[in-house]
């Protein structure tokens, strides 16, 4: 069977913000670059980012600077972050944003004509450069339009990589297929960058699209790379729950910022019932004070609806489990109530929350100015990922790099809003730069034809004569339901042990999934192959979550509800053993330098 072969210095897998930024950098360094994307160019999940990109430009509040941003990021990540990445990110984000403007991005403006910045959770000063509520689209289109003029970049659209090829220890290529015709393709490359995003599709309720099946984590793992802190999955507290077709789509934090309150089916504002001790001094004593905070009263404390994302998500979950939820399994988010306080509330809400008004009107047929929304937590982001060197983004496998959501370390146990878009640019650039540098020092490696043949046969075997009657969509749905129930927002050891057993059963079923024998654009066949990635990442994150016997950031353990000093100094590392089994070990967090520790102490005052 014919296999198309291409040669590049650098191969970038994934063409969202991180992948495209990496490709541009490697091309500018004089390398030939292959840019592979699972969908069409410009459709990656980066387009979904709304709020903005965090960078301490200091355009709105000149007290901001990299040190403040660094400290905010470490606090948000609860100090299990890779501090070097947090440092580089805070220092370089402003340059990356200004560079984007030079490439044609059109951010909203301040009165004196500079890039406007807005407030966001966990950021001390207004820091998010933005374009209304479509910042991600602006970034992806800017990078796309900038890169299409570079002749060194060859784009391979609707192409999916299923295996990395190694020569000894080094990664020297990748094997995959074109979705369009089902033809196979082999890329020979001196270095490979993984920029494939996250794994949201391992869960039933998610804001992620079909593509996010953990491909990059799985490719890297199978190539011998280490995965870091896979247990930290961010569940955003407010996604739509009704109607069913829009379940999981985000409802911005801004609704609560404008005075929206959470209630259960009895009309009770349940968030007042559970305020963590360490936040009590910073939280409103009663609804009246909370309301004043949302209206800009600097003497008032924030309402409990604006506590951290992980806490709010758990409280919502508790209400639903206790049978106090809304008719469709969420709770009520009510902004309409402000008509008691605000004259002409209807116009006020439409002006402050235009996209939310339209989202609910168009997809839910619900007028948020008169009716409460139904919301619930939705799987949003993977803080864990491929373990990389903070400076170069190279994994422990020579020639294999990772950036963006696929990489790990910057966000620790929890990511701040706005730090994802800046992550893509800062570390996409760094990955491109260092992958190019590495490529220039290498010759193309040897490709083992037998390995390529085996990869091809594996792909084709899903279309062989029937082995059973397993439907790939059904196995995927069963996995998603199981992970949602057993390894979701609230975790317990016995449930997660059950999950591991279920994963073993699902793996057996996944071997027998079947697709019609048609190579051309056959989504059933593609789902068969994606399944193996989903199962690997599900196992990895479940194992890490069991091992971390504490609650920290995005991980909440019902059986270990407090933070522990022991685990606060630990990262979880997953690696494929020589026997092919998944191995987990703990490693101490690399200690901060004295200089950075002093910055954190200074900012905590």
């Amino acid at each position, binding site marked *: 069977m014919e296999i198309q072969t291409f040669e590049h210095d650098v191969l970038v897998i994934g063409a969202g913000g991180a992948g495209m930024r990496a490709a541009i950098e490697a091309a500018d360094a004089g390398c030939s670059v292959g840019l592979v994307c699972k969908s069409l160019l410009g*459709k990656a999940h980066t387009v979904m980012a709304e709020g903005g990109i965090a960078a301490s430009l200091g355009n709105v509040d000149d007290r901001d600077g990299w040190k403040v941003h660094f400290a905010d990021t470490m606090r948000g990540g609860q100090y299990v972050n890779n501090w070097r990445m947090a440092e580089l990110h805070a220092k370089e984000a402003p340059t990356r944003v200004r560079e984007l403007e030079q490439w*044609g991005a059109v951010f909203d403006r301040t009165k004196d004509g500079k890039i406007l910045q807005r407030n966001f959770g966990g950021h001390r000063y207004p820091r998010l450069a933005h374009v209304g509520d479509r910042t991600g689209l602006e970034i992806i289109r800017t990078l796309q339009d900038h890169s*299409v003029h570079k002749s060194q970049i060859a784009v391979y659209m609707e192409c999916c990589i299923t295996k990395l090829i190694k020569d000894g220890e080094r990664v020297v290529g990748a094997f995959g297929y074109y979705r369009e015709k089902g033809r196979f393709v082999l890329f020979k490359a001196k270095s490979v960058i993984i920029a494939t995003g996250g794994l949201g599709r391992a869960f039933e309720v998610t804001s992620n*699209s079909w593509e996010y099946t953990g491909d990059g984590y799985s490719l890297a793992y199978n190539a011998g790379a280490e995965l870091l802190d896979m247990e930290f999955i961010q569940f955003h507290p407010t996604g739509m729950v009704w109607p069913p077709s829009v379940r999981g789509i985000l409802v911005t934090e801004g609704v609560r910022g404008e005075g929206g309150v959470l209630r259960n089916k009895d009309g009770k504002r349940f968030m007042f019932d559970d305020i963590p001790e360490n936040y009590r001094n910073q939280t409103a004593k009663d609804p009246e004070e909370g309301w004043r905070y949302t209206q800009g009263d600097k003497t008032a404390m924030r309402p409990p609806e604006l506590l951290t994302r992980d806490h709010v998500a758990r409280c919502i979950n508790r209400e639903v489990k206790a049978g106090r939820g809304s008719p469709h399994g969420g709770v009520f988010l009510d902004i309409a109530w402000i008509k008691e306080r605000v004259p002409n509330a209807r116009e006020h809400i439409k002006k402050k929350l235009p996209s939310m008004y339209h989202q609910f009107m*168009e997809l839910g047929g619900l007028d948020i100015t008169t009716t409460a929304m139904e919301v619930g937590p939705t799987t949003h982001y993977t803080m864990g990922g491929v373990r990389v060197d903070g400076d170069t983004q190279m994994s422990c496998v020579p020639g294999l790099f990772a950036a963006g959501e696929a990489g790990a370390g910057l966000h620790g146990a929890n990511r701040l809003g706005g730090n994802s878009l800046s992550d893509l640019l800062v570390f996409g650039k760094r990955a491109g730069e260092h992958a190019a540098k590495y490529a220039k020092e290498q010759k193309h490696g040897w490709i083992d034809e037998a390995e390529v043949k085996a990869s091809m046969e594996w792909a084709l075997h899903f279309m062989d004569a029937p082995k059973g009657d397993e439907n790939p969509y059904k196995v995927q749905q069963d996995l998603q339901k199981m992970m949602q129930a057993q390894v979701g927002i609230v975790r317990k050891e016995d449930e997660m042990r059950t999950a591991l057993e279920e994963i073993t059963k699902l793996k057996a079923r996944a071997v027998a999934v079947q*697709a019609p024998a048609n190579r051309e654009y056959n989504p059933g066949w593609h789902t068969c192959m994606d399944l193996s990635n989903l199962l690997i990442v599900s196992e990895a994150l479940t194992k890490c979550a069991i091992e971390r016997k504490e609650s920290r950031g995005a991980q909440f353990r019902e059986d270990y509800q407090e933070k522990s000093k022991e685990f606060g100094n630990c990262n979880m590392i997953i690696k494929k053993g020589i026997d092919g089994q998944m191995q987990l070990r703990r490693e101490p967090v690399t200690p901060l330098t004295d200089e950075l520790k002093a910055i954190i102490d200074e900012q905590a005052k």
Partner: protein
Amino acid sequence: MSTAVGDAAPHQRTFKVWRGDKTGGKMVDYTAEITPGMVVLDAIHQIQATQASDLACRWNCKAGKCGSCSAEINGKPRLMCLTRMEALPEGDVTVQPMKAFPNIRDLVTDVSWNYTVNKKITKFTPANPGTRFVAEDGTFRMQQRDVERTQEMRKCIECFLCQDTCHVIRDHEKHEVFSGPRFFARAASLEMHPVDVADREPFLKNEGGIGFCNITKCCTEVCPEHITITDNAIIPLKERIADRYYDPVTMLWRWVTGADKKDG
């Protein structure tokens, strides 16, 4: 305006979905169970998961932000993820691929032509530091009102529905000499950027073929982002080109001075 999504009992609807490839195909009937609030893309997914696992369609965000799931629903170019079942008239629902592009399989079409056209548009080219909108340090100084027109055009999600509906492409197949509304919008976003100094008017007049557009506004009507492509992109660009190339006084001046194409 939409109606509220209630808990109405599920019911069945028949979907006539085009199945085939570039060599031909036919409409195939499927039945999907319609639950409250469902959009056409949900029905296609349901058919995939239960009746035809190899039914080809593109999709990503499922929230009208990525522009992947373009199709022709009951003959009209629309995003499947934003077309609610309640909004369609009773009876069978037809779902077909975009007509203006070659078919690959089922609902998936070959839109690569659009990416080729995009490469022909001169990229953003900023003015030097120390000019009207650029500070000495190279950062831009633009007022919000200066960038609003550009920002409107940059809302484009590249669903290519405007290209699909445009009769110059769809019926007259002028792909070789006409870049289409999507790329007039892109060109406009650059031409209207306060800092940009490149000149795309010769391209628009010649290779871009903007003269073929006779302002039927079909593109504006189908745009899911509600970009006023005709009024705010195409007409202003056409006016600039008319002033530059066809205004008698300008033509005489250019002839006398021998001014190159750069000034306008």
